[in-house]
């Protein structure tokens, strides 16, 4: 069985075909379409109302749906999260925005002790279908506390889904699926990709949570990435191709649930793998991927699964962040170390 959660078929929204959108626009469209379709969807947080969010993801929602559906709250993240839990207990589908990754930490107790556990504690009598949107990770020259990659904290917490899109199309489809999900979803939006453009199929069949995708075919080794690292992985594969090495790229998309089938099939097909993620490497999602891929593909591996991750340091200041971010060169250096002499 695969853990896919279908968004309800978009019955009220007419077909609109394919448009070229930035990821920010795609997310905004997903919110609008979900709000139009389901009255119980509420969008709230800090500055998401008239301002439209500091990244403008909620632009126009208050104007379109009124300030009962999209509104600003007092400045308190635990408050926002606990309030969302109560709204969800009473029939609403809250979509909350944490303004930046590190500013979700005040809500940590609410997320871990309540959002993640409500269904389980009550054997399904109550649930918390909350989407926690977090502008996430670095690459935009942000000052301290504005560039954390916090996925490990959520991925380690049973009861949460954790996803991160790398394209506008996935951003749209995954956010719609997240809002439709009966369970809480931590939705990590790579800040540096907000302005990246791509084609978005707005009347596509509903997106899914729980599936990875091979985004570039290749035969020599597999790069496994998600969110902000996918474009970097693709770029590395492009460069490697010019050097005669064929790298496959898998976009994980859904960290929880993890798509072992797709990822492991990919790794088995090449026998070598590098996991790429921006977060500090120690006890990270990259560690998990390396560990589980190894457990499942050991006898197909010509080399240990390697990780290219952020270092185990606080996120650096703007002028130094390029040292921290996985780079094409660092990825290719690591690929070079995958025991090719045995090949």
């Amino acid at each position, binding site marked *: *069985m*695969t*853990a896919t*959660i279908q968004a309800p078929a978009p019955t009220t929204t007419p077909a609109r075909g394919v448009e070229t959108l930035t990821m920010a626009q795609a997310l905004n469209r997903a919110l609008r379409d979900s709000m139009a379709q389901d009255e119980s969807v*509420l969008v709230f947080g800090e500055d998401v109302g008239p301002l439209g969010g500091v990244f403008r993801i909620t632009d126009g929602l208050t104007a379109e749906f009124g300030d*009962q559906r999209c509104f600003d*709250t*007092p400045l*308190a993240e*635990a*408050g926002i*999260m*606990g*309030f*969302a*839990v*109560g*709204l*969800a*207990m*009473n*029939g*609403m589908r809250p979509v909350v925005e944490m303004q930046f990754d590190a500013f979700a930490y*005040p809500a940590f*107790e*609410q997320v871990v*002790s*309540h959002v993640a*556990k409500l*269904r*389980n*504690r*009550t*054997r*399904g*009598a*109550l*649930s918390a279908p909350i989407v926690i949107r977090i502008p996430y990770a670095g690459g935009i020259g942000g000052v301290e506390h504005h560039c954390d990659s916090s996925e490990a904290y959520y991925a380690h917490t*049973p*009861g949460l*889904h954790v996803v991160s899109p790398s394209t506008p199309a996935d951003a749209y489809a995954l956010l719609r699926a997240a809002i439709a999900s*009966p*369970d809480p979803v931590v939705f990590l939006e790579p800040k540096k990709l907000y302005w990246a453009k791509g084609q978005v199929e707005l009347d596509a069949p509903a997106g899914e949570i*729980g599936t990875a995708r091979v985004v570039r075919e290749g035969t020599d080794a597999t790069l496994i990435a998600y969110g902000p690292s996918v474009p970097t992985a693709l770029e590395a594969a492009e460069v490697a191709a010019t050097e005669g090495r064929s790298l496959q790229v898998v976009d994980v998309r859904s960290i*929880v*649930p*993890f798509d*072992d*089938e797709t990822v492991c099939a990919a790794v088995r097909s090449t026998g070598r793998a590098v996991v790429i993620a921006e977060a500090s490497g120690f006890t990270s999602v990259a560690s998990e991927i390396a560990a589980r891929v190894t457990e499942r593909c050991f006898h197909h591996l010509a080399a240990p699964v390697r990780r290219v991750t952020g270092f185990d340091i606080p996120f650096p200041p703007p002028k130094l962040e390029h040292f921290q971010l996985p780079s094409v060169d660092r990825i290719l250096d690591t690929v070079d170390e995958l025991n090719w002499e045995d090949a």
Partner: protein
Amino acid sequence: MHRGIDSLLPSEEPVQHLGADGRLTPLGESAKPDDEALLEGYAALVAARRLNDQAYALVRQGRLAVYPSSHGQEACQVAASLVLGRQDWLFPTYRDSAAVVARGVDPVEVLVLLKGDWHAGYDPREHQVAPQATPLATQLLHAVGVAHAATLRGEDTVVMALCGDGATSEGDFHEALNFAAVFKSPVVFFVQNNEYAISVPLARQSVAPSLAHKGIGYGIPGERVDGNDLAALLSVLGDAVTRARDGEGPQLVEAHTYRMQAHTNADDATRYRNDADVQAWVHRDPLTRVETYLRGRGLLDDAKAADLAEAAEVVAARVRDGLNTDVEPDHRKLFDHVYARRTPQLEEQAALVADELSRETATEDAR
């Protein structure tokens, strides 16, 4: 836009209608407590006390791991539930089992948490009672969310949100009161100030004139009430519920009461308070004063009292039976409610346990 400052500040002394001697205070005289309501309340008090005693006994017998008793706080427990209507919600803590039962939840289901079979033992939707909260003050925010959802749908639901004196120090208390005030949510924040947070006395928790004085900082009216006086509690909480239902927004009520027993049976209260302090509260017992009053008014006699005791005993017996019944631990439910549907990983993990168990059974069968 806010009310005048004076209307946000609590009265100088906790509101009292029935004195410790069971007589009406001047305020009580003018308030004219409702006989029916007091009699109903007294029955609930008797049941609540019996529940506390029974649960305590079950701990000693090893049927419950632990029990945070509300012995001495039963008037607060009972009033918090009795002032609510069917459409309302109650948000209790670990100490508020008696309030949950007073709202109609099966006490055996309530004690499941402490028996250890599962976390929440009752279906919160049935009586609109949230699962009992352990992480302090977190539930106050949920209460605001539930209330706000009702407001958005135009329902006249009121939410009664309970917490202790210690919990008022948590950030979530602050954020909940502020959210409720800003969204004008129909929530009654009801603080049972029992003078202790485990071993920490109120004086180390707050140096405010009273906890009810916290209301004004949010634009919420604060009131304080004698927490061992059922008549005053019914009145103050009842008014708060009415105002909230009428769209006047949240209220903060602080009840002055006392935790007569240790924090739980696992606690040793002799380490931090004198028996004399506890004794000083015995004559303020919330049951005695209502009983004295009702007997004085001829609304209660020995026969009626015996009836109430018997009714409470029936429930106690059911609790004993329920708690003495062992439930076969079923590993499957560990994996069934983490998400609406098991993830592939949870399927694998559940299968591992099932496999272990079937091999165990095979081994046992082979013996």
